[in-house]
């Protein structure tokens, strides 16, 4: 009876119904039972509605409200407002550091290559227990030897959750720069043509640019970027939690936008496939969006973004056109 029912038990029943609805359509008997429960007490209906809203909060294509505070801040990806540590080569240190780059190589350890295609993220586990996530169009080669673990990033982006093993340093190389960790999680990414970057989520890595340059340390929350042709120009930036979360969202197959324009968001999706999101009207293209979206669902993003801005969507086979409402 409702006199004995606590709000907690009502909430439990509501959650059970929401989970049942989430698994598939109800039978006629279940529908009738749910209707009866909903009608019997306004608190039942309220708890049901609330549980449905809770589940809806985690829908992936959700465009979130842009408050004045969101749009007042300039794009936080631009480094200009942050402390910027630029590191330059010191030739005199070359001799003392040369030893760092010497690693025992075992030519007999087998090399395994992994490659991903268009899917936004692919996971795999290495024999040492390290877990990797590969972005789209990524290729790596892996050699696990007795005294070292070596990965070569050929192209793309990879995120590493390194299984601790102090006896075997885990080193990722991209062109001539080697990133070494003992037990930590970090990404090494081809940022754009000619550029590279490393992001550290947990722990610490050593970045050795080779050619006798001194190594530098990057800690949790740091992002190191450099031009491939000139690795001595490695620049470090300490990201805040939001920026780190956004830049590593691809490891969950997601794109996170926090105040980017729709145009920028559409371009981000463009890296994951040939689906084109076009916004011909300039003022609309510069409107800002926040939210998290599956990288594999650009159409879902376009529909959600247009709905939140009151714009219209014209669907085509390989893309959409977003226009202001007539």
């Amino acid at each position, binding site marked *: 009876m409702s006199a004995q029912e606590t709000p907690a038990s009502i909430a*439990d029943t509501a959650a059970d119904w929401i989970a049942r609805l989430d698994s598939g359509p109800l039978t006629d008997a279940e529908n009738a039972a749910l209707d009866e429960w909903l009608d019997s007490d306004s608190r039942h209906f309220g708890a049901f509605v609330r549980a449905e809203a809770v589940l*809806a909060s985690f829908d992936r294509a959700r465009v979130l409200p842009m408050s004045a505070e969101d749009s007042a801040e300039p794009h936080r990806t631009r480094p200009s407002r942050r402390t910027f540590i630029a590191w330059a080569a010191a030739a005199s240190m070359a001799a003392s550091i040369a030893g760092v780059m010497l690693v025992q190589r075992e030519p007999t350890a087998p090399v395994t290559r992994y490659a991903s295609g268009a899917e936004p993220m692919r996971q795999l586990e290495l024999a040492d227990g390290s877990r990797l996530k590969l972005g789209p169009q990524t290729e790596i080669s892996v050699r696990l030897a007795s005294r070292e673990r070596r990965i070569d990033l050929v192209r793309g982006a990879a995120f590493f959750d390194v299984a601790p093993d102090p006896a075997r340093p885990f080193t990722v190389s991209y062109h001539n720069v080697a990133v070494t960790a003992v037990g930590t999680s970090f990404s090494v990414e081809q940022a754009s043509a000619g550029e590279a970057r490393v992001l550290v989520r947990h722990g610490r890595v050593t970045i050795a640019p080779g050619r006798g340059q001194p190594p530098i340390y990057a800690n949790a929350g740091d992002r190191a970027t450099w031009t491939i042709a000139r690795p001595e120009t490695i620049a470090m930036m300490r990201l805040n*939690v939001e920026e780190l979360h956004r830049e590593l969202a691809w490891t969950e197959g997601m794109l996170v936008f926090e105040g980017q324009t729709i145009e920028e968001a559409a371009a981000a999706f463009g890296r994951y496939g040939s689906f084109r999101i076009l916004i011909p009207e300039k003022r609309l293209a510069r409107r800002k969006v926040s939210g998290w979206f599956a990288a594999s669902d650009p159409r879902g993003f376009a529909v959600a973004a247009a709905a939140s801005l009151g714009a219209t969507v014209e669907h085509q086979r390989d893309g959409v056109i977003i226009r202001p409402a007539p």
Partner: protein
Amino acid sequence: MSTRLRPERAQWLATNILPHEAGLRRWLLRRGSTPGELDDIVQDSYAALASLSDVAHIGDPRAYFFRTAWSIRLRQIQRAKVVAIEAIADLAAFDPISDQPDAERQLSGRQELHRVSAAIDSLPARCRDVFKLRKIESLSQREVAERLGLSESTVEKHVAKAVRLLGDFMATEPAEGGRAGAGRAEMRSVI
């Protein structure tokens, strides 16, 4: 009254009402509600909001939510019939929206994103695995069951548990505090 929720209404509540629930609960406590009364007021408020035929006209959903909750509380007190007449008149005249000593800021999209992340991180491990596969990788409950080697009914129970726990999280975690919580979790060092 068995109006099942349309998806757009669930989304509207998720975006415009649920984020303010924690603030509403704190505010009601400060205005004299006991903790035991809060859940009833909140459940009835959601029922009232879901019953509206149209929400497009609501310019300030947070204010609407607070006013709805306040009028529900008034009705509860009047039904109790043990409060002096003067007190009821005071309550009826009270405008909850003009009385905001601590400016509870509107949630920004950014803050909401991080609250959502922190909420998922707070789930127990197995429940979180199920929830992430269902909501982030969009597997059906059946596919989640196959992937994790669980029965479908176990998966459904985990989803129900997640809805329950996430609801509690959203109801109690202050919006601004979510940022600090997420920061501590993210910046933990392994070595």
